[in-house]
């Protein structure tokens, strides 16, 4: 180890970060409790959820879905922040690689990102990981504002995006409180300035044939791997049987080594996702906005002395 020396080179390098702010500003974004408190009261750390549920009022009826109502539950206790889900999603959904320069301009393409927050002292910070993708809100703020109906709600509760219709006003990006919508700032395909896999014939062979490649100027986002949903639904129909819980796995769920993400049908009371939604630890991100997300998070329980 003696041969290693450290010296100043005078070279400056701008880091490419996807997240620049490191605290939660005291907002209840990642909710946590300690094991001790959890044993006393499973609701602990998640008191706000009940409060919000109680005060939810709306002029409109709560949206109901006849067939399926797809949902995703994320156990923050299990998430280790490895980003395997982000990479799995990227390869499943042909998400473009856009390079450091774009990230330095605070542009990212990942449909699922891992938010990372620190708390306590800077010397000995506590770390939080939180996977955030499109929350598929039943009262989605993004859908109302699109002038050309490019984004709307499917009858299975999915917030769907039709790329062919999108004219790129970016209004939906602004009006998404979770900032999970992504914009194709440039042509990321066949563009010499973005010489990544989508610029070569060989590189393009990694693209998933079930998913389209998006044009410059359109908005894209998590689709709950709608191609996988359709495939399994079709398979079940051909085999003349009902869809089983766990049959459909989204790419992020499939890749997660800790099984933190669970996808399923919220209309099926016995499904794992329904069970998790009924859990005392379950809450939704910024739920006080009454966006009615189809993604739920489970409170993080730490085994520490408070």
């Amino acid at each position, binding site marked *: 180890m003696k041969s290693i020396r450290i010296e100043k080179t005078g070279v400056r390098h701008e880091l490419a970060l996807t*997240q*620049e*702010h*490191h*605290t*939660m*500003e*005291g*907002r209840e*974004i990642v909710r946590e409790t300690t094991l001790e408190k959890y044993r006393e009261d499973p609701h602990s750390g998640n008191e706000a959820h009940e409060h919000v549920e109680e005060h939810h009022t709306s002029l409109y009826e709560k949206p109901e879905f006849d067939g399926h109502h797809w949902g995703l539950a994320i156990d923050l206790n299990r998430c280790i922040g490895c980003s395997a889900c982000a990479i799995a999603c990227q390869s499943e959904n042909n998400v473009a690689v856009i390079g450091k320069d*774009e990230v330095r*301009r*605070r*542009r*990212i393409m990942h449909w699922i*990102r891992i*938010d*990372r*927050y620190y708390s306590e002292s800077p010397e000995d910070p506590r770390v939080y990981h*939180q996977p*955030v993708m499109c929350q598929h809100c039943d009262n989605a*703020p993004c859908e*109302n*504002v*699109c*002038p*050309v*109906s490019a984004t*709307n709600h499917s009858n299975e509760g999915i917030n769907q995006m039709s790329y062919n*219709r*999108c*004219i*790129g*006003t*970016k*209004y939906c*990006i*602004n*009006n998404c*409180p*979770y*900032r999970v919508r*992504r*914009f*194709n*700032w*440039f*042509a990321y395909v066949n563009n010499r300035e973005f010489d990544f896999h989508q610029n070569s014939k060989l590189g393009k062979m990694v693209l998933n044939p079930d998913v389209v490649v998006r*044009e*410059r*100027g*359109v*908005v894209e986002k998590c689709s709950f791997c709608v191609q996988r949903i359709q495939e399994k639904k079709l398979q079940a129909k051909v085999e003349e049987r009902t869809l089983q819980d766990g049959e459909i796995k989204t790419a992020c769920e499939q890749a997660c080594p800790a099984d933190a993400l669970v996808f399923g049908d919220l209309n099926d009371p016995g499904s794992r996702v329904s069970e998790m939604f009924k859990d005392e630890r379950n809450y939704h*991100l*910024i739920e006080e*906005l009454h*966006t009615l997300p189809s993604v739920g998070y489970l409170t993080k329980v730490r085994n520490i002395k408070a």
Partner: protein
Amino acid sequence: MYNREVRGPLIIGDKSFKQISTDILAPTETKPGKWWFAMMTLATLASIWGVYSIYITVSKGIGTWGVNNTVGWGWAIINFVWWIGIGHAGTAFSIFLLILRQKWRTSINRAAEAMTVFAVGCAAIFPALHMGRIWLAFFIFPYPNTRGPLWVNFNSPLFWDFIAITAYLLISFSFWYLGMLPDFATIRDRATSKVRKALYGFFSMGWVGSSRQWLRFESLAFILGGIAAVLVVSVHSIVSTDFAVSVEPGWHTTLFPPYFVVGAIFSGFAMVMTLMIIIRKLYKLGDYVTDGHLDAIARILTFISLIMGTAYLTEIFMAWYSGSEYEMFTFFKNRITGEYALQFWGMIICNALIPQLFWFKKVRSSLLIMLIISLFINLGMWFERFNIVITSLSKDYLPSAWASYTPTWVEVGTYVGTIGIFLAGVLMFFRYIPMIAVSEVKTVKDIGTRKYD
């Protein structure tokens, strides 16, 4: 109704009809001065930069701008709202003063309406440009198509906005043009060269000033005026719904429609003042645009400035009163203090404080000071829009997504370009169109003079 003793004559110097025509039409009938060519060169250079920036945006993509995943709207939307605001004065001036029977509007409404048309034209460039796929912009029309037919989302404020801007452009242009018909005919009938006669003959659409034409003219002016009055209020209200209908902290507020309308009229009147001072100085039309006219605009600006100040305070109060931590953060930690404090305080000082100098008679009678204050107001209004668009977006609900925004030269270029286009439009207006409504001034020439008694 009009007290001569208090307010003096509307037109100074007991002119004959002939004299009025000659005075006002002089710029269109003589060669412009050197300053005109100098300004035109400047305007053309600015427009060229603008067109080049537009070319870069359209050929390469919105990525050439500084906007990012968090701040999806940047200078383009700031400038859009800014221009639309300026574009409000013309029609507001014409219509509201017409309804209030303020005869002094006759000397100013033509220039104000011209400004409206150019400003709204400039504004319309931005929403088109900030679209990711501008070549598919026709998707926003609800036309029968082979895709279903798939109509548009009638709930979207952007769709309302699109229709409102189109209607506003159409109405303000027709109102402006209608007023010009008699004046074009005057130029046509005074013309000595064949080309002028043919050109103005074409644009005067066969106006001869017959009683039947005047009857229908007034009838149409009444209709257009009536609906434009509704439109002036609703267009900027609709622009404000682009923000107010969203969920963003600092945007989601019912205060926005009136606040935007008043703000728009504020910036528009300031621009009218700038223009009128220039017209008065450079074309020596001081007999028509009198000290009284500028004084009246200054008084109105003082009053509107107070409303603006009240609106700013109301916003801040509501942010605190709502108890919403997101709203509080946006106002107290991101605007009043924090990254964008400069723009916030710039807005307060330029819009709410500086115009209060108009309380002093001395300030209201100095052309130079009035010119400077009117420019400050427009700067302040730009800051206001920056405040609204950028600060709310950059730091909203999830701190993980917070990001700052700085524009690139392409965005600056499009802005400078629209200023160039606006300036070129105004200069062409000075040169080829009577700056003051000749036929209307003739009707008020005796008001406030001895002759009228």
